[in-house]
């Protein structure tokens, strides 16, 4: 006798495995309702209905509890029934424990459907009307019910499962579906509208307000509190029941707080306070009081005080990343003049005027302290305490005005991690100002290369420097300025005919000339009383107007004698 080929011995096991895989794959088909088998733990062996099609005349023989809704009798046969045939003689023995009703959150009722059909005049509903395997006409080729069959008949007639938010028509709230394991909940299919870009910012709130009952099919209160620190104040969140399974699933997952488009608009740093005062509840959807600390410190006044506080281990709320103090954008150093002049925002909200001197009073180099160190007291003389993460003196008490009691220092920021520092700037926009290095506005090497910047006048040197007492004084000391009244073209040696050409340069950059040349230098040629008597006035010069306002300046060229001395 030929020995049996060894692989044949593995056929039954291979077939069983294949069947099991097929079963699992079938159960995982898209469109399976929430609560369908995938991931529901150990796969149970399923009864091969189709192979027994000729044996059982009616489904109710094995599922006699269906018409009555008695779940204990949904599977009214067991191993003993199988053993009548699969006794090891006539048929191989099988082991098929009595299945239990599947964990589900379906609100489906067989008796009610039977009753409805009867009321509608239908004799009965064939089981295969719902349980037929798609594409098959053979009896007992059955599968689990497909959601499409439900939504095809029911009132909303949605084009597909998950296309409607009327979930409660077929499903129970998650909190009531206590038999569903957490793993199954984690695998709930995700409706397509959840994928829309604005779902978090706009969509989910609107839907929750409109029909939180539908949300409750998949979500519990913990689903919302993962991001919403203000969940206790939101009706839809309160309407959801807490659920320990969901709590476990969201534990450790960071909240999601995408920035709304409004936050990217110009001037948001100025406008957000107005919005906050008008509707702080909206801010509270994402922000905790600590969110404001990046710019406002930990002083919780006004609308900030109404924001929720983060609790340890809970969501932090959206973090605010400040590129500097509010309104102090990347090009603040050279561009803040207009806003300061227009008083928007009020610099005095955070600064005292003397702090401007840290940069603006550049009467000497090497000095100056970092701005922002002194707070302006409010109209009652109070000063906000600084317990901001960036403060070296985070435990300082608040200021006290006359007659005021000492204010209780506000609690420190709940978030252990300080807000991330914003990007820094280099070069002329660099960190020297912010860090106080060299105590001033310019980088360390600026004085060595400041010539081009002075001619370009991107910022006015005279905002901070005296042209005479600082610029010219230094240039004279460095041998770069014309001393006394000596005028030669030795310095400007790149222009061979400098004396003939200098008029154009002078009119284009007279303030640069004045940073080296004294007035007397020019009077050697441009006085009306001596020298070459070259008229320096341009065609639009109005002598009468100037004489009416400062006849003394006219006198420098037109009357004073000392300038004529060699």
């Amino acid at each position, binding site marked *: 006798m030929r020995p049996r080929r060894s692989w044949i011995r593995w056929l039954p096991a291979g077939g069983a495995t294949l069947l099991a895989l097929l079963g699992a794959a079938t159960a995982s088909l898209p469109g399976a309702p929430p609560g369908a088998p995938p991931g529901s733990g150990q796969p149970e062996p399923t009864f091969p209905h189709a192979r027994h099609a000729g044996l059982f005349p009616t489904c109710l023989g094995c599922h006699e509890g269906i018409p009555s809704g008695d779940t204990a009798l949904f599977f009214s046969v067991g191993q003993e029934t199988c053993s009548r045939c699969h006794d090891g003689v006539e048929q191989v023995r099988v082991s098929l424990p009595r299945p239990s009703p599947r964990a589900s959150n379906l609100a489906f009722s067989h008796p009610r459907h039977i009753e409805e059909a009867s009321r509608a005049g239908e004799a009965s509903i064939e089981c295969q009307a719902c349980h037929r395997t798609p594409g098959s006409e053979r009896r007992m080729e059955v599968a689990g019910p497909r959601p499409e069959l439900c939504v095809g008949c029911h009132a909303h007639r949605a084009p597909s499962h998950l296309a409607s938010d009327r979930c409660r028509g077929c499903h129970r709230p998650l909190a009531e579906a206590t038999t569903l394991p957490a793993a199954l909940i984690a695998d709930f299919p995700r409706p397509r509208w959840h994928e829309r870009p604005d779902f978090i910012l706009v969509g989910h709130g609107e839907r929750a307000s409109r029909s939180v009952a539908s949300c409750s099919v998949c979500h519990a209160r913990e689903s919302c509190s993962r991001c919403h620190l203000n969940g206790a104040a939101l009706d839809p969140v309160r309407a959801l029941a807490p659920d320990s399974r969901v709590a476990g699933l969201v534990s450790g997952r960071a909240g999601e707080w995408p920035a709304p488009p409004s936050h990217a608009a110009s001037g948001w740093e100025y406008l957000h306070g107005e919005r906050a005062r008008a509707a702080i509840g909206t801010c509270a959807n994402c922000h905790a009081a600590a969110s404001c600390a990046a710019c406002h410190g930990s002083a919780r006044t006004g609308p900030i005080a109404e924001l929720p506080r983060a609790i340890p281990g809970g969501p932090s709320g959206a973090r605010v990343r400040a590129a500097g103090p509010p309104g102090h954008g990347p090009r603040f150093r050279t561009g803040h003049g207009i806003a300061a002049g227009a008083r928007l925002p009020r610099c005095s909200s955070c600064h005292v005027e003397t702090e401007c001197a840290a940069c603006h009073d550049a009467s000497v180099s090497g000095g100056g302290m970092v701005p922002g160190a002194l707070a302006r007291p409010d109209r009652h003389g109070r000063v906000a305490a600084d317990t901001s993460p960036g403060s070296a003196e985070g435990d300082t008490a608040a200021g006290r005005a006359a007659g005021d009691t000492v204010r209780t220092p506000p609690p420190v920021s709940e978030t252990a991690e300080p807000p991330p520092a914003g990007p820094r700037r280099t070069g002329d926009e660099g960190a020297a100002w912010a860090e106080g290095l060299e105590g001033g506005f310019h980088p360390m090497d600026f004085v060595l290369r400041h010539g*081009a910047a002075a001619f370009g006048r991107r910022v006015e040197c005279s905002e901070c420097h005296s042209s005479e007492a600082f610029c010219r004084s230094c240039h004279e000391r460095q041998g770069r300025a014309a001393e006394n009244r000596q005028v030669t073209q030795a310095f400007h040696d790149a222009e061979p005919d400098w004396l003939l050409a200098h008029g154009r340069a002078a009119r284009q950059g007279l303030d640069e000339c004045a940073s080296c040349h004294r007035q007397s230098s020019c009077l050697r040629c441009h006085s009306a009383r001596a020298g070459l008597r070259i008229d320096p006035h341009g065609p639009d010069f109005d002598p009468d107007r100037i004489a009416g306002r400062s006849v003394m300046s006219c006198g420098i060229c037109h009357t004073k004698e000392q300038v004529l001395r060699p």
Partner: protein
Amino acid sequence: MSGRAAAPGSTLALLACAAVLAWPASVLRAQGYRGQAGAFATYLELRPLVRDSLPEDQVPGDGLRRRLADLTVVSCTPNEYCRWYRSGPVRDVAVATQEVRAVGWSGIAGLSAHVHLRGRFGTDDLWPRADQTFEALTAYLDYDHGDYRFRAGRQYRVNGLGYYNFDGLAATWRGFDPLTLEAWAGWSLGRGLNAPRSGDLLAAADEFAPDDRGLVLGLEAGAHWGRRLAGTVVYQREIRTDLDALYAERMAMDATGIAGPVRLDASVTYDLSFREVNDARLRARVPLPAGVRLTLEGRHRTPFFELWTIWGAFSPVGFNEGSAAVDWPVPGTDLLLGLGGGYRSYERTGAGTSFTTIRDDGWRVSATADWTHAGWYAGGSYRAEVGFGASSLGGGAELGRRFGDRARLGVRATSTQMLGEFRFGEQRLTGAALEGRLKMWNLDLTGSAGLYHLGFDESPGTPDWTQLRGFLGVSRPFGSGPRAHAGGGR
């Protein structure tokens, strides 16, 4: 308050600084005042230019511009001398300043005192004003109550005309919410001087410096509409105390507004004496997709000169400039990129010869990249500025690390090519600096030290050399809540 003969005041200021720095913080932690005191020192090496000459007949060649045997370019005056500039010896400069800045509340609601004092000295006279020993930047009383605010003393004004201080009174009324009115009057001070125009500082710098103090009178009206639109109009007149002549008469208008996502800024400063717009700007900041921010600006600028000088009578011309800048915080990263540039064109001067090579325009570009992550920071920049009188092209880079909020250490390198002041030859600046900051024992220590190499092309009289620069500063807060930065001001 200013001048060279303020030695007693200087001594007091120095003693005050020393006392504050040495005073136990616990004693000063009273609730009635807060302030900051510091001392800062800068060291640098300088190499002044010195003028040299030879009799004209000893220099070969002819013409106004010739070369010496070592190819030094000299400028000659017929029958006189040929002159040129060469490097002098290297000199050391050290400048030290001490500052005290404080705010105190009096016990009367709304009444406070503000003071900012500065004392300084230097090792020699190479650095301007190193020898001035004491000055008061501000020293005023402030009464801020209800709809009014009054100030008396040396105080600063910050408005569309700029930043300047004066000795006198200022009053503010804000009783009608959208509107704020301010007026001030007193003795004016020279800008950037903290001293009267008639003082020693200007007298030493110019033979025609004013011999009389100035009086200042100013008015400002401001209004705002929510936080979307605000503007101010400022008028200021500065006149000699003998009323014989004006020093300046100017106006300024500033407005800023937010229209949808766009922020618009506009400003004009106008010189009533010369009927000249000194500075006019219109700027728009537009957010673009992906977090990009675009800034566009148009500007007209004509220099302003006070009437005690003759410069305004020389009919300076202005320039018109257009510029743009883009800032892009790269999403998902800690990288911030910036790009900017501008072009300016000068008005016709009606002066100089037609064959001059002096250009009548200028341009600039810059590119920056900044990155921070987990305490590290790095950045790089490139900038080019080409103008009619001076140009520079170069860039820099920095790398450093922050150690929490209490320490920082970094290095910075730079390299720049320069052409300047219509001078022959090109300069090259390369260098690097180490910089750091440390906060300990309630002290804030900052310091930096750098070596910079200056190279010169086609300038035999100015050899290459390397200079050392350093800065060291220490400051400490005192009083209550000394580091408060988010005030509850109105």
